[in-house]
């Protein structure tokens, strides 16, 4: 590794900040994949994989992905809840890899709620 200059130091800082943003960075979007036994049985695992791949590709460090338990609507699993700052949360139902990719690209990155997949808008 070559010697650092002050600019290199600042570049490393930015890169490392992105990589450790879970600990300190500000979040503007929270995506919850419901992963109770029912969700996992219905394929929530693949939905999560797709979501994480999309997230990595986007390079965004302000999006938090969390998993949670069953919401009580087992028949509509896999469910995914998208919460964007300043907007009401949207719950999607019967998700799969492709739907997740679409929701990520259209809703999360461009703000267009994918009403076709939506179960409800939480009040």
């Amino acid at each position, binding site marked *: *590794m*070559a*010697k*650092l*200059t*002050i600019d290199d*130091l600042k570049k*490393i*800082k930015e*890169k*490392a*900040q992105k*990589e*450790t943003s*879970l*600990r*300190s960075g500000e*979040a503007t979007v929270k995506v*919850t*994949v*419901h*992963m*109770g*036994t029912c969700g*996992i049985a219905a394929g929530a*695992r693949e939905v*999560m*994989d797709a979501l*994480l*791949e999309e*997230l*990595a*590709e986007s390079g965004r460090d302000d999006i*938090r*992905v*969390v*998993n*949670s*338990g069953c919401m009580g609507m087992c028949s509509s699993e896999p469910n995914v809840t998208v919460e964007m700052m300043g907007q009401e949360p949207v719950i999607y139902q019967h998700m799969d890899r492709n739907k997740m990719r679409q929701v990520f690209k259209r809703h999360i990155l461009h703000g267009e709620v994918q009403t076709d997949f939506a179960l409800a808008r939480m009040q």
Partner: protein
Amino acid sequence: MSTYRTEILLCGGTGCRASGSEEVKAALKEQLEKQGLQQEVRIVETGCNGFCAQGPVAIVQPEGIFYQKLAADDIPYLVEEHFLKGRPVEKFFYKEQAGAETIPVMGDIPFYARQELIVLKNRGAIDPEKIDEYIARDGYLGAGKALLEMTPEEIIEEVKASGLRGRGGAGFPTGLKWEFAGKSEGDVKYVLCNADEGDPGAFMDRSVLEADPHAVLEGMIIAAKAVGAHQGYIYCRAEYPLALRRLDIAIGQAREYGLLGEDILGSGFRFDLDVYRGAGAFVCGEETALMHSIEGKRGMPRPRPPFPAVQGLWKRPTVLNNVETYANVGQIIHKGGDWYAGIGTETSKGTKVFALTGAVQNIGLVEVPMGTSLREIIFEVGGGIPKKRKFKAVQLGGPSGGCVPESRIDTPVDYESIAQVGAIMGSGGMIVMDDRTCMVDMARFFMDFIQDESCGKCTPCREGTRRMLEILNKITQGRGEPEDIELLEELSTMIRDSALCGLGQTGPNPVLSTLQYFRDEYEAHVYEKRCPAKRCPELLEFVVDPDRCKKCGQCAQACPVEAIQWEKKQTASIDKNKCIKCMSCIAACPFDAID
């Protein structure tokens, strides 16, 4: 390509390792792989998180969930529930006390909420073995500014403006120390870091080195530029294997990045560092003895002047600061001296790290602004005294310090106020004592330590502390004579005024301060042959008081030699022929019924 959605920041400090965090880490790794989560959930091993009493602890991000007292056996359940199914597990949350509501989020726990972190800002938040994570949190920006934009004089002015004082205990203004060394004639100068933490009950420096070693390196680089030094040494005791390992890793990474070595950050300035391992002699924390030790000689102090700033290591001008002092410097340069001076009191700026230990609920590492009262630290951050016992005194500053009794517990922590009540700020050891602590026995413990660690060079310390220990042993064994108390005072004054170095001069402090506040306890031992705190076995009768005995039988259960007769609904009685005076029954009795 994928990214992590969750990070488990598992504490890998010495405290948590001792309570099993390495096994927890292995179990986490195994279970995450078993559930196929290793690409989603990252384990980060951090340095000491501070809350050692609850260890092993872990923080789960981004939620900020705080888990405590984890064991390897719990991990399969935890991983399945939280990381697979997304249900945080309440039984590992923190509780203020039994029956109270659990507190899941770290920032809401009073122990953390009341602290202000500067020196410990990266504790539990970064992997100390990754330089990039230190850089992510503004690391080395202070060094960059000092090397590229500031003259040595400007650095010294900034440190002076911050009001930073030596955190090793004496509280000498750091900027002034650097100025003296900077002005000393000589082309070869040295920058040293004192990591020879030796006070019983102190673990601040160890924790800083384990959790954030780069902060210390950065402080030393800045000091080197300020005084014009090109070589530094960190003197760290060999009893700190984890701190040494993380220091070695940190120095290696800093060299690789060119933050140590020639032409640092393209500034043309060169500086390099080596670690010197001490063998653990307490006296080597004294600055002149420490330098002798690095020179390869026996660790013994020499008279000052000449002071190290003029003639130090190998007779060259030398700056010696403590670990915690250096850990402040990078941020002072980065954020400015005025920012730092805005925290604390008129004469003591910034924050102070304390190793809170003894009879206190939340044992651990705490950092509070100067001027916080001892009461706040012990009862709010520390959570008070366990087992509903009464607070008696707090010992500050280790063997060189003194104790502060309940009547002075509202004393704010700053160098002057602490000195006024007969203790010293010291390096930050804070041992809390409840009403079961015998102050004579406590003084005896410290005197035993001091006379054991005395290097033997000067007579007052070598002989004087030995005589004092003999007297204290006599008193605690019930052989005290009326003139002993005055003799202790006389010896104390004599040693304080005539010993060669700080170790000897301050050695009598534990005796002097207990005599000041707890003279009645000495008198009870000497005149009445009685130990009011029931700690000195020779002065106890080992008799059960039938009025106070509630017939619970806990003493009989605790007795290792079956010397206690007890049956249900019967007062216990102790067979003196069998009793070995081990004190187990006294510790076990909830009603103080054994005298």
